[in-house]
C-alpha cells in the first residue's frame, strides 16, 4: 500500500500540472481566434487578386516576358519552405510536418538537389544534425507575422526562382480546416499554375464579364500581379500554419487537462484507501492494547 504522504504529494503535483495545461488551453483558444481573424481578413484581398488574375490569365500564357513564371524545368534544384512552430506542446503539429518533409526528400525529390528553408524553429531543430542544405535566414518569421515581412521573403524567393536558382518551390504547412483538424499540405507555389488560382477563387461573378481597359498594359499588369499572387499564397500558408498551431495546441492541452483529471481521480481513490487502512490498523492496535491490559 502506497504511503499516505507520497500519494498526497503526487496529487498536489498533478493538480498543478492540470492548472498549467488548462491555462495553456485558454491562451491558445484566444490566440486561435486572433489567427482565424487574420485569415478571414486576408480573404477578400486574395479573392479579388485571384479574380483580377483570372481576368488576365488568357493573355498571360502568350506573353513571352512572363514565361519565367510558368516554365517547367527539369527538377534539379528544389526549394522546400517548411512552416513549423517556434514552441512545442502542440500535439502532432510539428512531427507531421517533419514526416512530410522527409517523405518529400525520400521520394519525390530523391534525385534533386534540395534546399530547405525553415520558417519556425521546431522543424529546424529536427533536421539540424542532418546534412541537408538549410536556409535559416527567416526562421523567426512567425514572431512578427505581417504581410510586409512575408512579402519581402516572397520577393527573395521569386527572384531566385526567376534567376534559375530553383526549378520548383514547394511550401509544406498545416492547412487549417478547423480547430481539431489540420491537413498537412505540400503546395507548389512556383512555377505558377494559373489553374490553381482559379480553383482558389470564390468570387467569380465578374470573371470575363466586363470589357476592362488595362493600364499600363496587360503585360506590365501581369508582371506586377503574378508575383503579388505568389506572395499572397505564401502569406496564406503562413497564416494557416499559425492558426493550425494554436488549434493543435488547444486540443492537445484539452486532452492533457482531461488526462490529469483522470490521474487525480485514481490517486484520490488510492489515498482514501491508504487512509482507511491506516485508521483500521490504529483501531486494531488500541483494541489489542486495551485487551492486553485487562487480561
Amino acid at each position, binding site marked *: 500500500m502506497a504511503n499516505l504522504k507520497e500519494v498526497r504529494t503526487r496529487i498536489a503535483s498533478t493538480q498543478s500540472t492540470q492548472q498549467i495545461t488548462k491555462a495553456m488551453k485558454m491562451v491558445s483558444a484566444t490566440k486561435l481566434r486572433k489567427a482565424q481573424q487574420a485569415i478571414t*481578413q486576408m480573404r477578400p484581398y486574395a479573392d*479579388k*487578386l485571384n479574380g483580377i488574375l483570372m481576368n488576365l490569365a488568357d493573355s498571360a500564357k502568350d506573353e513571352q516576358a512572363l514565361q519565367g513564371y510558368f516554365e517547367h524545368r527539369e527538377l534539379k534544384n528544389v526549394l522546400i519552405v517548411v512552416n513549423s512552430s517556434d514552441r512545442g506542446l502542440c500535439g502532432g503539429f510539428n512531427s507531421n510536418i517533419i514526416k512530410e518533409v522527409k517523405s518529400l526528400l525520400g521520394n519525390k525529390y530523391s534525385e534533386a538537389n534540395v534546399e530547405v528553408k525553415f520558417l519556425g524553429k521546431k522543424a529546424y531543430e529536427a533536421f539540424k544534425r542532418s546534412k541537408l542544405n538549410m536556409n535559416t535566414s527567416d526562421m523567426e518569421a512567425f514572431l512578427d507575422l505581417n504581410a510586409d515581412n512575408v512579402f519581402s521573403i516572397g520577393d527573395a524567393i521569386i527572384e531566385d526562382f526567376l534567376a534559375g536558382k530553383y526549378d520548383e518551390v514547394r511550401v509544406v504547412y498545416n492547412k487549417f480546416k478547423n480547430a481539431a483538424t489540420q491537413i498537412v499540405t505540400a503546395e507548389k507555389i512556383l512555377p505558377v499554375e494559373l489553374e490553381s488560382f482559379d480553383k482558389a477563387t470564390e468570387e467569380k461573378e*465578374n470573371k470575363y464579364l*466586363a470589357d*476592362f*481597359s488595362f493600364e499600363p498594359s496587360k503585360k506590365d499588369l501581369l508582371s*506586377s*500581379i503574378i508575383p503579388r499572387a505568389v506572395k499572397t499564397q505564401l502569406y496564406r500558408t503562413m497564416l494557416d500554419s499559425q492558426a493550425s498551431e494554436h488549434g493543435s495546441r488547444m486540443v492537445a492541452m484539452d486532452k492533457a487537462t482531461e488526462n490529469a483529471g483522470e490521474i487525480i481521480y485514481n490517486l484520490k481513490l488510492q489515498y482514501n484507501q491508504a487512509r482507511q487502512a491506516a485508521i483500521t490498523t490504529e483501531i486494531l492496535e488500541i483494541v489489542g492494547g486495551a485487551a492486553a491490559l485487562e487480561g
Partner: protein
Amino acid sequence: MIVEVITPDKVLFSGEAVSVKLPGSGGSFEALANHAPLISSLDKGTVVVRTDSGEETFDVSGGIVEVLNNKVVVLA
C-alpha cells in the same frame, strides 16, 4: 460610388465616396462615379479617398486597382 482599400492584413477603407485619387503606374489619376471598367497597377504613393465628410489618405507601396460598376477596389 463604393470604394474599398484592402491590404492582406486588413480593410483600410470601405464605403461610399465621391472620388478616389490613385498613383497609377502610368501617372496619377482620379476615378469619379461611372468610370469605365479599368484595371491598373499602382506605384508607390498616396491614395486619397474623398467622401462627403472629408478626405482620407492612405500610403501604399504599389498595388492594383480595379474599377467596375461604380465600385473601386484598391489592393495595396
